[in-house]
């Protein structure tokens, strides 16, 4: 069993806008590309050109169909990665202390040197956000690009997670969700951002912004004909419409 810090100075995390995510997977490969070469072991691929390719990804996008009773069916694209929970069950279940939550910013990480690859944390995570790397035998997960966000070798504007930097629709936001005045906290407040499966008590840091209501009755009132064209004929219509110039 591993203890969580009693308090974190910040709660860094992501706010993901489900109203805007088109499901393009840009965040998926930007994440794979960055994290393949920096924090810990590379993200390996098994059988990459074969019958059943499988590799390690720290972030995946799923698409779900929603079928409201009173509106056409919809598709919701749902990016999934570690939520950096306050009460992270993946940390407390870890037998070696390899999984830990940082006191300074709340990021949940795996110390790969101490990871024995037992997989308990993946079992404990209700979000399916951890993946065992088949080549390295260690648990991989979203690091919130801890090696980018403080990285003095990067220009300041690039010190954000790779998925946020690359997202073409701007559906991903990064910041301190512990600070109610931060841009991300404000966004969550404005848009009704919510926790994923709050009843589990994991207190996730990441928030999702719900899709806006779709297929609403339109607001503009229907157009009224200028006059009864069948009665007046085309000439009547022409006179009326050009009288407006």
């Amino acid at each position: 069993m591993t203890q969580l810090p009693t308090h974190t100075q910040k709660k860094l995390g992501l706010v993901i806008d489900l109203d805007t995510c088109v499901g393009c997977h840009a965040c998926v490969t930007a994440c794979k590309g960055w994290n393949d070469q920096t924090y810990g072991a590379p993200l390996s691929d098994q059988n990459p050109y074969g019958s059943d390719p499988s590799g390690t990804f720290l972030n995946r996008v799923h698409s779900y169909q929603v079928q409201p009773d009173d509106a056409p069916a919809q598709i919701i694209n749902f990016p999934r990665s570690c939520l950096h929970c306050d009460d992270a069950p993946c940390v407390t279940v870890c037998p070696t202390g390899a999984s830990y939550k940082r006191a300074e910013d709340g990021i949940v990480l795996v110390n790969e040197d101490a990871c024995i690859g037992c997989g308990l944390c993946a079992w404990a995570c209700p979000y399916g956000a951890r993946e065992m790397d088949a080549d390295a035998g260690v648990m991989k997960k979203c690091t919130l690009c801890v090696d980018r966000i403080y990285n003095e070798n990067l220009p300041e504007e690039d010190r954000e997670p790779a998925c946020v930097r690359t997202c073409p629709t701007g559906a991903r936001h990064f910041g301190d969700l512990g600070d109610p005045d931060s841009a991300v906290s404000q966004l969550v407040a404005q848009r009704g951002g919510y926790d994923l499966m709050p009843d589990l008590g994991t207190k996730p840091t990441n928030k999702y912004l719900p899709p806006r209501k779709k297929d609403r009755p339109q607001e503009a009132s229907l157009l009224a004909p200028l006059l009864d064209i069948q009665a007046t004929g085309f000439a009547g219509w022409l006179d009326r419409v050009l009288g407006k110039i």
Partner: protein
Amino acid sequence: MTHHQPHLDPSPRVSDEIRRTTCYMCACRCGINVHLKSGKVSYIEGNRDHPVNKGVLCAKGAAGIKQITAPSRLHAPLKRVGPRGSGAFEEISWDEALALAVSWMKPLQDTAPEKLAFFTGRDQSQSLTSFWAQGFGTPNYAAHGGFCSVNMAAAGIYTIGGAFWEFGQPDWDHTKLFVLFGVAEDHDSNPIKMGIGKLKGRGAKVIGVNPIRTGYNAVADDWYGITPGTDGLLILSLIHCLLEAGKIDLPYLAQWTNAPCLVGGDGLLLRGEDGKLLVVDAATGQPAAFDAPGVQPDLGAVWQGSRTVFQHLAERYLAPDNAPEAVADRVGITAPRIRALAAELAHAAFDQTITIDQPWTDFRGTQHATMVGRPVSFHAMRGISAHSNGFQTARALHLLQILLGTVETPGGYRFKPPYPKPFDAHPVPHIMPRECGPLAGPHLGYPRGPEHLALLEDGTPARIDKAFSWENPLSAHGLMHMVIANAHAGDPYRIDTLFLYMANMAWNSSMNTAATMDMLTAKDDAGEYVIPRIIYSDAYASEMVAYADLILPDTTYMERHDCISMLDRPISEPDAAGDAIRWPVVEPDRDVRGFQSVLIDLGARLALPGFVDAEGAPKFKDYADYITRHERRAGVGPLMGWRGDGNQTGRGAPNPDQLDRYIENGGFFQAHVPDAARYFKPWNRAYQDWAVEMGFYDRPQPYLFSIWSEPMRRFQAAAEGHGDRQPPQALRARLKQAMDPLPIWYPPFGDAAAAGYPVHALTQRPMAMYHSWGSQNAWLRQIHGRNPLYLPTRIWEEHGFAAGDWARVTSPNGEIVVPVEHMAALNPHTVWTWNAIGKRKGTWGLDADAPEATKGFLLNHLISELLPEQGDGLRWSNSDPVTGQAAWFDLRVRIERVDARDEALPAFHPLPDLGEPS
């Protein structure tokens, strides 16, 4: 265990070096920062300074790192040693390969240049490839637009002087209502996604009109799940509603379009003695030139019996057959919903007007204190254009934009330099019937009438693809999808050498794929191949490789120079002209050469004009040298930036340091549009003057939008029997209908043979693979490695389908057996699948048991390149009758449930792996 944190270095070294170049994972031309460690590519991210993507990057872009190490890369020139289609090759040297190519081409150049057909599947180097083909003297050249979206491009050019994507884009910063028609999942990848993000950020509304609700349509605030092929019917009905209510921009129509021009008895517009279009001046009641200073064109005028275009159009679309109630069943959208959409368009356009405080002066000399606009914008692509009524549908959409006054006004749609450019500022098609020597001009262009058709003296088509013939008079991008079928049939004639670049014609780029393979391998009575020689250039072991006799292996996009040129498809934005380069950020580790450099080498060996100097020696060392020193007109070359002494833009002598300056600047150059020139570009003096200064054209060319299309009317008149050049009898009725000078809708041609095939079948590329050359990418195939056929709820339930089921899908052309899945967010009469996931066994460096090769499939087998015979003994191309665009989406099928299988049908014998050993 108590809380414990290990030491962590928060600032690891990122890379040794960043090289900034242009992506080519699709056709969007985003800027990328390529990070290198120890000389190898370690990470790719978007370039924040780049005008196209401003730092963001799509899934393909970041996955490009796997493209340059893919096992499917070809590694040396190959010469066929077994039967064509067997994949039996031997490696040869470049000297041998080029000598062989020249030995085939030179005799043709000297005796029958039309027997070389040169078609390229990609068009980012079209200004070079077309120049080469002009020099060779063959009429048979085009790029891939014919099977892509030429309906969209041509309809836009003929109507407003530009179309979507390449030519212009929504005013993302000001638009309040954005309507997407028939746009595949990831078309115009990052720019549209960034635009949608902007709209969402400020609460603007997005409406999707598409049978399939995925991708951009999934985030649309409202979705119109239209029946395929009926978009034109819907658009004309929206026009009906707007006219009926008088919700149209009359001053815009009067000033900037040919709505006030007068239609003469011959259907052409009245002109003055100087040839200028006439309008009736409301101030005098007398005819005046359209561009006379201070003229106030009268939309309601009648002059000596000739009525204005405005009256013709209003009368046509006000007719009851365009009412929502009359079209609802065919469109698959209820009449109240159609009326609601019309109301939303009118509300955004006329109740939410935008005014920008910027004075400007129009071409008549009238000064305007502000720029006033109507914040409705549209975008559309292949979903509406890949039908046999696609040209007219795209015209209808432009008419809708025009009636709302939303083209080139704030909040609407904006051109990207060098556009706007009307059809009559483009070249006409050039051929050299049965003669040797270079063509006098480019192959592709915009005919003004029958006199510009590419016909031989006997009236038969001059081109192997029959472009610019009576079958499809305005085929501005050629018909690449007809080349193999026509060459095989010897119709209109036989060719000798087919020369292809990056075009998978033996697989997903051809209709009727299995038959195409047969045509490529067919032999005549003498035992010779009907298409005697095939040369192909590709970087990867695609399906087409096995069907060529000589392979010229290309580099990947990170190993060569490229030029994203103002002469071709630049990277302009509405507020800036821009062009860009690629450069070798890594060196090839194989015996491969960039295709453009190979083409320049071949050009020199064949002594083509422009490729050799006065002594006959090669003029250019390679493509980089060509980009720097080639001049198309004096002072105008492939790149506009840093010309002359390094300080000249647009025009200037070649600058030997030009490429270095591009590299220093991140691989691109921009010239910004002056503030007073930002909107109303076709009519804005400041813009016209700036465009001349930049070298886009040589004198100001203001013009009116062509609501009434005179070129179309000229072809229609010919079909009615007027004029010297007459169409074949069998085509008259079709031409009379299709060449209507006002937008119309008619049922897709496929419908005629579709009795018993009640379901529409579509394809689109997935988000992470759109326009992507090579879905064998190790990361991307983990995201999209399978392509079930998606069935709507109605069909799923009617046939009793269950998870894991398969279906037999039958069209008039054939059948396939494929895995299916249920999808609710889909038009109830439509099925669809991801295109080009299916691969042939042995290709693309994939194992033979890869899901792409076992369960993956193509709909192409169901689509014939020819329409069924209609009782006249003739079979016409399955293409739009105006432009020849491949009518992929006219496909109709029927579905039957079958037992689950291990492999999709049809299956083909595996090809040998021709890629690098992995």
